[in-house]
């Protein structure tokens, strides 16, 4: 077993659990808000977001169970990371673009207001996206 199987498997387990929690929230089950003051499970289309995270978690687990020795299991893991980055990136973009128009009579909000919008709490996908950066190591594997 390669040494990186365990952390990738762990990332898969965490992502799957978080995805299930997001989906639960999406169908109306209550969760604390925000969690530890850093994570928020709020906003729209939670069911969709949760499904993506759950699937990404399952793909991490599938890649880890494949041993990460072959290119296919590595590609599965990178693909799972891409899914998390898509969700996190689009969430962040929505936050930034939502903060730029200043409202009535103000065309562009002051810079400090825009920066403040980027502060915590964050969606789970944003935090997972940071952890998923570790899987970038597989993109550096080149053919002989």
């Amino acid at each position, binding site marked *: 077993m390669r040494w990186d199987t365990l952390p990738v498997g762990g990332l898969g387990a965490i992502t799957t659990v978080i995805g299930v929690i997001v989906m639960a929230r999406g169908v109306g089950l209550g969760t604390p808000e925000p969690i530890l003051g850093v994570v928020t499970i709020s906003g729209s*289309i939670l069911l969709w*977001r949760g499904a993506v995270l759950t699937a990404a978690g399952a793909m991490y687990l599938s890649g880890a169970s494949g041993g990460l020795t072959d290119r296919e299991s590595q590609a*599965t893991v990178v693909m799972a990371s891409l899914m998390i980055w*898509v969700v996190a990136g*689009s969430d962040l*973009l*929505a936050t930034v673009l*939502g903060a730029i128009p200043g409202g009535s009579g103000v065309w562009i909000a002051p810079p400090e207001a825009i920066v403040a919008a980027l502060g915590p709490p964050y969606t789970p996908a944003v935090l997972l996206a940071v952890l998923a950066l570790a899987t970038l190591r597989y993109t550096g594997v080149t053919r002989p």
Partner: protein
Amino acid sequence: MSVPSRVLLMRHPNVGKSALFNRLAGTSITESNYPGTTVDYTESELVRSDGSVPIVDVPGTFSLSPSDRAEAVAVEMLEDSPAATVVCVLDATQIERGLNLAVEILERDRDVIVALNMFDEARREGVDIDVDRLSELLGVPVVPTIAVDGTGIDALQARLDDARNPSVQRILERVADEGPDGGESEPSIAVADPSPPVDERTPADGETGGDDRTPDEDGENALGTGQRWNLVDAIVARTVSYRETDASLSDQIGRLAVSPRTGIPFAVAVLYGVWTVFSAVAGFFTDGYFVPLFDDYWLPWLQSAFPMEGSWLYFLVVGDPTATNSFEAFGVLTSGLFVAIGVVLPAILTLYAILAVLEDSGYMARLAVLLDAAFRRIGLDGFAIVPMVLSFGCNVPGVAATRSLETEKQRFLTMTLLSVFIPCGAQLGVMLSLIPQYTGYILLYLLAGFFVFGAVLNRLVPGSAPDIVIDIPPMRQPRVANVTTKLSVRVRGFVTTAIPFVLLGVAVVNVLYLGGAVEWLANTFRPVLSGWFGVPGETVPALIAGFMRKDLAVAQLSAVSMTPFQTITSVVMVSLYFPCVATFAMLIKEGRESGGVLKVLGGALATLLAALFVWGGLLRLIGIALGVA
């Protein structure tokens, strides 16, 4: 050496020819519709030291024996330009198929130069091509290119004058003289082989069949299919060598993207990204800037500056003189301009940009492959996902994108289903903010309707749904230059062709208002709405508003006192009952080129009436069964 009077770029689909065209053509690219068809092609001017010559990006074709409309247009363009120089763009990773087309073009006595595109990809995949030897055998210049980064483009331009028109007989002689490397045996290149090659496609019913000409039938420069493939095999045996390589990570991701187990979750994530980015960017422009611009500045200025208040002309152009926002004014230059510029334009700009990125990355073709089986069940093919994705942003570009589909039947089915069942991004956004707990269920119900009615229409509507060949390009990083060129060409085409129709649509709505037709419709349908669907009569104004903007219609519904189930039913009805004015205008425009306006509009209206009463009524039955209606 001859100076070309016109340059045609010909190739298979997905060989990176558009990128090569963009490199050669510069910024003056225009997209045109080939007369009498819905096939688009692009053209521009190739600037040379001795002046400029027209350059045309011919629709992709697998051979000169057309099996679909786009291929027929490609062949017609070649035949209409006997003096043109043909740049035959080959995918170097699949050189055999490209060479087959090149030989076919040479059989038609055209001056040819070969661009071996994706040369870097071929090297990475272990395909080594002896360019000089290939050029000698074919008797035409062969230039390796990497269009995405511009490698080889200058050399290709410089050698255009060297394009040659060698006889195929001479190519056969040269190939026979040289003999294959290593003394391998090979099929005779002089005798026709009656069996078609493995990847030769089967044409659809009623379409032109494969090329089975013989030299005797078409003159001495023409080959039969088997002879041509034997010649191609012989050329490849002399010029190409293959090395063993492992699949790269991007190759693997490309494969996983078409495998249902990993491809479907990935597609769900990509579609989430598409929708979220669309909502964020389009909302940024529309709600952040265009709404205040129109409501606070444009509308008050026009209301005070336009003369003849109270006249029919004022009502048509400016609309309601007491309106406080551009949506409620209903004038051509108030609501019309706002919908066209403030709502539709940001939407299509965003969606076209996303689509260009997905296409350039190679993912769009994979998504089409992944979803092909599902769409086949309703008479469509995997490429129907493009208009569908666009429609989730805005139905207008969605309807416009149906022109890429193959048959009139497919275009009619897609236009109808999109305009009836797919809620636009603005509408979804309002649904999510007003009734987030129900939006997912409403969306699922509408998607189910899309496929159920699609299956029914597929049986009822005459016409064919031919098999298609989806050529999958390699996964690669999208290039900014490609994306911006595609974006600018599409947006320019959309602005010049669609926006006038949107403005005209608003004018027509105003005339209907003036003539009392809208009020009559409202009064007529009020008892039906209450009786059949069980929603209050107060929803009628919202349904009428939905003809202008469905998102604001949903917002209006929130002000009506209803039970949760009535809310769901009325929101479903807003989606089903009628396309918005901009979509309606596009249906008229595209209908003219897809079987006739009456057929398309009549069919769409019949479908929406059936969908409204059957699907809306079914929803009420479900509600009654669950005890919530």
